């Protein structure tokens, strides 16, 4: 598919999301707006900074949530494959609960019920809403990432682990040096998927008062209702660049670590 085609698709996808977000109060003027309107584009670019801050928030939330999701989700997946007893059961149940709960509910629980504190890092501090956002999105991502890793760890042939043990590696070492490197390689496609989902789902943090990219876009076209399409296109382009570059980077990582296969058998 051409880059332009992909861009158009991404725009349509984001439009859908925006349409859902605005379902309660449909902005007027949508029918009269037309994309080439110079005044509206000028309005968008005048507010690029405002949207830029939203984009940074989106990126920050995504990166932090994906990282937290990995740090928690990878061991969780490993426990589901190699663990037993209470630990395994606890991990499985936690995963089912997290995957079965709407993300808005998770965020609201984190923010209003658990009441996570503001985190002070000296140079900067992370607001408690931001902390709640990262924890909520991160833990939910962990629940999904654990399933990616559970599947890829289990997909590595048992003979690999056995061969590792046959030269005297402990079970942990055999998993660490033989199974994990192969499973991680197989996890890249699932991980790309998960990244894209988390990136788009960051918009949900409006529920706890954070204004990331999409929320800010909504604020803007509520202000100037003739600029709906221009704002949406601009935002979609940002989402597209983020997804595209990250997926390309993961593709590169995948081919760099791809295991060579010869023609001979």
């Amino acid at each position, binding site marked *: 598919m051409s880059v332009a085609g992909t861009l158009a698709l991404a725009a349509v996808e984001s439009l859908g999301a925006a349409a859902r977000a605005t379902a309660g109060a449909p902005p007027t003027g949508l029918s009269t707006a037309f994309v080439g309107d110079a005044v509206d584009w000028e309005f968008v670019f005048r507010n690029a900074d405002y949207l830029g801050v939203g984009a940074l928030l989106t990126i920050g939330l995504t990166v932090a949530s994906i990282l937290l999701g990995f740090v928690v989700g990878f061991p969780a997946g490993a426990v589901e494959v190699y663990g037993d007893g209470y630990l395994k059961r606890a991990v499985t149940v936690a995963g089912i609960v997290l995957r079965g709960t709407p993300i808005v509910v998770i965020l609201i629980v984190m923010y209003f019920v658990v009441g996570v504190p503001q985190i002070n890092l000296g140079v900067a501090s992370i607001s408690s809403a931001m902390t709640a956002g990262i924890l909520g999105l991160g833990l939910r991502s962990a629940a999904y990432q654990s399933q990616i890793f559970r599947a890829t760890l289990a997909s590595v042939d048992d003979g690999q682990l056995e061969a*590792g043990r046959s030269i*005297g590696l402990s079970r942990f070492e055999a998993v660490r*040096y033989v199974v994990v490197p192969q499973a991680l390689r197989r996890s890249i496609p699932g991980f790309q998927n998960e990244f894209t989902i988390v990136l788009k789902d960051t918009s949900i943090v409006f529920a706890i008062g954070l204004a990331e990219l999409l929320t800010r876009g909504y604020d803007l076209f509520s202000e100037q209702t003739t600029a709906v399409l221009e704002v949406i296109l601009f935002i979609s382009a940002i989402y597209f660049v983020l997804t595209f570059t990250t997926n390309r980077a993961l593709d590169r990582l995948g081919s760099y670590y791809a295991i060579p296969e*010869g023609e001979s058998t």
Partner: protein
Amino acid sequence: MSDDDFLRVTDVSKWYGEEQVLHDVSFEMDRGDVTVLIGPSGSGKSTMLRCVNRLAEAQEGSILLDGEEVLSPDLDVDELRREVGMVFQGFNLFAHLTAVGNVALGPRRVLGLSETEARERAEDQLERVGLADQLDSYPAELSGGQQQRVGIARALAMEPKLMLFDEPTSALDPELIGEVLEVMHGLVDEGMTMLVVTHEMSFARAVADEIVFLDDGRVVERGPPEQLFERPEEERTGRFLERIASHD
């Protein structure tokens, strides 16, 4: 039977769930001996082999290796496996590592050699099996015969005192069997103690000190190859050997 047998397997029994797959299996080997296990598919050959390095757990009996009880619950199985090499029917090479990476992993992570020392040892072992020109190839880039030779080098790199071979040539195209058997012949000449499951009867005849015929998890008959092949005492042994011969 002498007191100083290197490997002494006595009345080993094993169950998988309700099904008993080994019935009081006994045999013994001296240092430097080659013993070949033969028998129909499903007779328990692999299971017997795997009990020796504890990849499978025997529930009854005794396996003494160099005077130590392998089946003891206190035994350090990782230590045991350091000293007992295994070669698999399906090669089981580490798919993400090159030939050198496969062979160096044990020396590096188990024996604690440095990166350079482990690589050197791996190169030496690969040279030993005739693969000096394939050091940096990945398993998928190698022929089956080459892969199995990497598998042998991987086991040898741990400097084992006993080598277990589980049908090392069964997965190979006929034209690739020779190169693997040649490497195994070399090990015999060097005096390696080897317990081998194979259907390669000419190999068995040439190198085995003793043949053990298993059927239904029981030792039906055992003895030196001349006796077992020429004058089998049990009817079942004769029938099995005829069947094998007609496949060649």
